[in-house]
């Protein structure tokens, strides 16, 4: 066959689309909306879900980072070379609190990483890597972004005469980015500094010391073995701490993990509802064309021919619409999602997103074609006469009543609208379902935003019942308690430790003398509260990571190298540190390492002014700090997240609007005869609006409670579980969100009604009477 029939077919299909421009446009809009939702979800979800791995890959992130007190490089090197399973090692000197500046910007918190020959563990995203010269610097992308630094700019660095020229911008996912991280990182070449300044220590080491190393293993699965061996040969090297690649990921998760997981979970929900929408609208489109199908069959089209033709026409609409929608969704989500990734030092997926979006495109077109072809196939299976008669009956406005519910509908035009939509139960159900899902997702997004705010602002969300902490070295608990407005005070010990058996697993041991639940009370998931200093309650996150349950023994290695053991008596749903926490009493900790210093947890009296107490503490030299919620207390970061959530909610609001407009338009198109009859009887535009308002009201009245229930009883628990099954996330929408969404739905319904009524009331009555 030549392509002539194909071309003729295309011409024919295009001509039919032109004739049915309104309907084609409507179907296309639906696809655009669903595709936009999908595009946004995929952009956010994929970018975040794969961000760490992708960046770790590109940055050549080591399997282990070890930190220790300054040491001669030769000594460290000699020990490390003996380790089994070793592929490569890089030594570094990390110098904190370096003053840096550029233009009018300045900070005293700079973190200099003096790197040596060998693998870097960061990815250069702009410019080039360091050469062994003393006047070059590579800055982390967070600093470049925040200070608008570009390759070629000068960075003033305390101790470096004349500063250094920025030659490159780097990303390393082993920490979050500045300003989310307190100190901005920059990299200098050890060889370069030596060449320029000579031995900076002047202490005759021969070369500058190092205090950290990056370690790559040959077989990451045998990491534990390497770490155990490293411990064994580490005598003489003090304050040794390891962090593994998976440990890094956990640390990053503390900053953004829950949100990332929530967004990924949301993407799944969005995906499902997009498919639902596409299928529903494609179905509705075929329903409207039953008579055409009857005619096609009557003039001799095969059943397959009918289905294929319908699928082809659907593809013709779906392809450009889905492309447009995916592009819109990507445009809306790409910016905020890139900002979020940037804040946690992760690279965007870039072109890797394209095949995925391409797959989405193919998927959408396939779903639309299938959802069109299937009902067409079924309709074409009926006798043509039956299809024709069915269509004709409906066309004359006397068949639809068969399906009508005899509702006790209100009288008047409004009530008529109610009855008209109630007559098409399948469509009503589909529309209400789409609207309900979209409403539920919007509710979820808002609840999520509210939760984030509470996590940041309200320590109570994390089970923390103290409002302030104070430095215990300059004041005593007694002095603090004496301050007006203070209800009670307790020392709080917090120690970063690792599991003795799995040195890569980090946890935080938190200890209060006495009843810790007076100060920190994460909900108990299993077992009981602790009663002695030999016992511990551990977070569900830790229990999952270590495979521990009630009755097991938790063996921890403290930074000093000492080991302490606790019997696990309870599991708690702690959100902090991904649930990798253990609560106990301080006695055993202090026995193992008497140098551990507590801080003071300060509970305020009900109604006390926090600022007043803060001033009192400051006056006593106790460096008060407001207890934050989650570790992400950074406001700009939260603003980023809020933007992202809002973008997602916006897309969903548009979906609501579309679902309603589509349903009302279908009703108005289908019932143009009825509308024309009403107008011939003297109905004005206001009456047409009322009829459509009645129709919209039914949909909304069905969808709103269902959407609420869906969020409350299905989405919120599911998403909270997917995001953090180790903690209880109160994701149910509150009164404020419900009111907002209720108002939004009413506004959307009003807008949809107005839009459709405008068109319906403009159509010539005569045409409605002829075609209806």
């Amino acid at each position, binding site marked *: 066959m030549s392509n002539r029939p194909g071309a003729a077919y295309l011409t024919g299909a295009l001509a039919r689309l032109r004739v049915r421009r309104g309907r084609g446009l409507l179907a296309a809009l639906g696809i655009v909306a669903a595709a936009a939702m999908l595009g946004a979800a995929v952009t956010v979800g994929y970018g975040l879900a794969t961000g760490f791995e992708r960046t770790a890959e590109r940055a050549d992130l080591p399997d282990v980072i070890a930190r220790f007190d300054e040491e001669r490089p030769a000594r460290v090197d000699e020990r490390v070379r003996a380790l089994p399973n070793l592929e490569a090692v890089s030594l570094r000197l990390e110098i904190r609190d370096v003053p840096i500046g550029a233009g009018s910007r300045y900070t005293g918190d700079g973190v200099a990483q003096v790197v040596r020959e060998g693998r870097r563990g960061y990815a250069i995203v702009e410019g080039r890597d360091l050469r062994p010269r003393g006047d070059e610097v590579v800055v982390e992308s967070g600093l470049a972004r925040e200070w608008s630094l570009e390759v070629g700019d000068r960075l003033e660095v305390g101790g470096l005469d004349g500063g250094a020229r920025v030659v490159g911008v780097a990303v390393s996912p082993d920490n979050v980015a500045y300003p989310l991280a307190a100190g901005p990182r920059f990299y200098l070449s050890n060889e370069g500094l030596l060449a320029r300044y000579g031995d900076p220590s002047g202490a005759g080491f021969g070369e500058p010391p190092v205090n950290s190393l990056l370690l790559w293993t040959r077989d990451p699965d045998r990491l534990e073995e390497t770490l155990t061996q490293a411990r064994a040969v580490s005598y003489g090297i003090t304050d040794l701490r390891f962090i593994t690649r998976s440990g890094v990921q956990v640390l990053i998760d503390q900053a953004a993990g829950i949100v990332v997981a929530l967004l990924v979970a949301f993407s799944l929900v969005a995906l499902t509802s997009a498919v639902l929408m596409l299928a529903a609208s494609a179905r509705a489109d075929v329903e409207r064309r039953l008579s055409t199908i009857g005619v096609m069959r009557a003039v001799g089209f095969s059943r397959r021919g009918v289905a294929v033709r319908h699928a082809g026409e659907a593809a013709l609409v779906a392809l450009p619409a889905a492309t447009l929608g995916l592009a819109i969704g990507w445009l809306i989500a790409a910016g905020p999602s890139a900002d979020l990734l940037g804040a946690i030092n992760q690279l965007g997926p870039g072109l890797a997103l394209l095949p995925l979006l391409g797959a989405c495109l193919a998927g959408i077109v396939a779903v639309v074609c299938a959802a069109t072809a299937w009902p067409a196939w079924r309709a074409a299976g009926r006798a043509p006469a039956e299809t024709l008669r069915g269509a004709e009956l409906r066309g004359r406005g006397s068949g639809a*009543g068969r399906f009508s519910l005899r509702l006790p509908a209100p009288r008047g035009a409004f009530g008529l609208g109610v009855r008209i939509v109630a007559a098409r139960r399948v469509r009503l159900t589909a529309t209400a379902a789409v609207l309900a899902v979209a409403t539920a997702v919007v509710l979820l997004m808002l609840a999520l935003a509210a939760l984030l705010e509470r996590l940041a602002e309200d320590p109570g969300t994390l089970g923390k019942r103290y409002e302030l902490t104070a430095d215990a070295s300059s004041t005593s608990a007694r002095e603090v308690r004496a301050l007006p407005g203070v209800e009670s005070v307790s020392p709080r010990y917090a120690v970063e430790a690792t599991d003795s058996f799995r040195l890569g697993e980090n946890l935080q041991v938190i200890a209060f003398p006495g009843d810790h639940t007076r100060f920190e009370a994460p909900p108990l998931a299993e077992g009981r509260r602790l009663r002695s200093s030999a016992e511990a309650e551990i977070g569900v996150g830790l229990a999952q990571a270590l495979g521990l349950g009630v009755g097991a023994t938790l063996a921890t290695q403290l930074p000093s190298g000492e080991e302490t053991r606790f019997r696990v008596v309870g599991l708690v749903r702690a959100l902090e540190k991904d649930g990798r926490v253990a609560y106990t009493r301080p006695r055993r900790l202090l026995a193992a390492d008497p140098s551990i210093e507590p801080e003071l947890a300060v509970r305020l009296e009900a109604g006390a002014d926090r600022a007043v107490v803060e001033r009192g503490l400051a006056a006593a030299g106790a460096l008060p700090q407001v207890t934050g919620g989650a570790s992400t207390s950074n406001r700009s970061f939260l603003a980023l997240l809020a933007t992202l959530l809002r973008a997602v909610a916006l897309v969903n609001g548009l979906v609501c609007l579309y679902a309603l407009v589509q349903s009302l338009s279908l009703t108005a198109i289908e019932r143009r005869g009825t509308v024309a009859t*009403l107008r011939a*009887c003297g109905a004005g535009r206001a009456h047409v609006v009322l009829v459509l308002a009645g129709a919209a009201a039914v949909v909304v009245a069905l969808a709103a409670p269902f959407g609420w229930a869906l969020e409350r009883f299905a989405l919120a628990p599911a998403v909270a579980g997917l995001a953090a099954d180790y903690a209880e996330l109160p994701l149910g929408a509150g009164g404020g969100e419900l009111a907002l969404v209720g108002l939004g739905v009413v506004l959307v319904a009003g807008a949809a009604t107005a839009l459709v009524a405008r068109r319906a009331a403009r159509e010539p009555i005569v045409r409605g009477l002829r075609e209806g």
Partner: protein
Amino acid sequence: MSILSRVTVVSARGLVKTFGRGRAARRVLDGADLDVAAGEIVAVLGRSGSGKSTLLHLLGALDRPDGGTISVAGRRLERAGERALTDFRRRHVGFVFQFFHLVPELSGEENVLLPGRLLGGEAGAARRGRELVERLGLEEVAGALPHTLSGGEQQRFAIARALVNDPELVLADEPTGNLDAESGAVVLQLLREIAARDGRAVVLVTHDRDAAAIADRVLWMGGGRLDPERGSPPRALRVGAGAA
């Protein structure tokens, strides 16, 4: 009736209506004149596509003429605003269609009450609606949905709906076109009564000469104009036969 028959309800002059543009333009009405008095029933005959429905649409303010003047019940329609036309349709004109156009979700009686109650029309409409249902012999099926009714019943409900707001003018577009002979005769008899007994002006469009026989006057639509039908038989001779 004798005094009413002199009151002119419809007066249309030089009506022009064109559909399409450029070379595809078609002048469907081209200077049509029409007068209908109260209590008079005028039949318009013509070939399919000659512009009969178009004429009714103009008279009923469902569409606007491109030229000419229309006055119905003392109101000039060709220059009236949309609001005035909506009000006009509600109060002064009633339509009866070939395909009935009952709202399928509403019972027969609710359809009758539609222009009055649903649209907040005149207060007396509800009472009149019930009277009409009774008068047209529809009480038994008043609560039934249209699809359960026969064509004749549906059309009688449609006629009741056209009358419920007490309009001066009733426009019927092939009202018997979809009915069997017997139901058609009943409908025609009703229209006759509406004119004769209630004193309304009725314009009946049909292509059926037998149906036209009930009219006081029969006009022929052709070439976009209305002309008296030559050789139309006097009503008195035919009405009995038509109703039989």
